């Protein structure tokens, strides 16, 4: 009886598998996503600016800061000294 049942089940499965419309969908635990091809376009961060890259020594800001702060400190010191003298 068991053998007969198994045989019928096998025939049914085969019959349904043969006809795509009846094919049982099988959920596989293995993910089957479509293979991705490497994109051909490069991912370079392009320089699209209208200005050429700045290739100067570029310490101008730092030198300016030093010059300005030196002048300001000098002025503050003078001011303090004058004030101290005036106090005396």
């Amino acid at each position: 009886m068991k053998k007969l049942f198994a045989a019928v089940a096998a025939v049914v499965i085969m019959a349904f598998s043969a006809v795509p419309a009846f094919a049982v969908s099988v959920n596989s635990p293995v993910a089957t996503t479509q293979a991705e091809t490497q994109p051909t376009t490069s991912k370079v961060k392009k320089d699209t600016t209208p200005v050429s890259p700045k290739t100067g020594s570029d310490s101008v800001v730092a030198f300016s800061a030093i010059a300005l702060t030196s002048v300001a400190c000098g002025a503050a010191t003078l001011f303090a000294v004058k004030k101290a003298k005036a106090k005396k």
Partner: protein
Amino acid sequence: MKKRKNNAIIAIVIILALIFAGAAGFIIFRIVNSAAANDQNSKIASSYASNIAQTDSSQQATQNSGSESSPDATTAKLAENPVNLSELNAQNPDIYSWIYIPNTNVNYPVAQSDADDNFYLDHDIYKGYSFPGTIYSQSCNKKDYSDRVTVLYGHNMLDGSMFATLHNFSDPQFFEENKYMYIYTENRKLTYEVVSAFVYDDRHIMNSFNFLDDAVYTQWQQDALNPRSVSSNVRKDIQLTKNDKMLVLSTCLNGGGDGRYLVQGVLVKDEPTG
């Protein structure tokens, strides 16, 4: 009231002192970083291109003796390649050529980043931060120098490194006496004759001109032969055609300002190397 005024002055002085210290620290860092980069670059040159000056002088002698090559002669005998680019390339695949200009400090590897066009503006060939950066081109240029115009960028360093000595070409005598600049790839030696050297504006050359257009390219060449800049040097006996390939070296000006100093060369010899 008086105390408040004094406190304000003290606070201002402290702030100014902090700014001063920051600026001084920044400059010291740059000086130290530049010195280290210089040291590293000279080590790279002596390790990977140790005989470049000798190779150049022997070939200059050949050129001066009148046996300057016909195209057949160049193909018959392979040119010497003093640069071990394959080893450099193994360390950093972005390095694809070497530039050498006799009687200047220009003797460096050339890189092109596949991630950021201006990466090598402030990175050395080992991809670490470096104020002088590396001589580089952008992705708009092919690495085989087959474009009509290839632009290489380098810093105008105060210590004379990178592209600073390109400014030597502003001296008419130096310009007359130094005709050639060389590019070595892994299996080619490209010789460029210096066409002109002049101050230009800060336009991005490759983004501003469509050199695929014959008219644009011809105009560019005419401008190279007749620069509008006052301080320019031009080699008189050169004719340029639309089939020529040009190399533009770009660096900043000595006195600051927004312009660029350009040295332009035309490819006169493309030799396979052994």
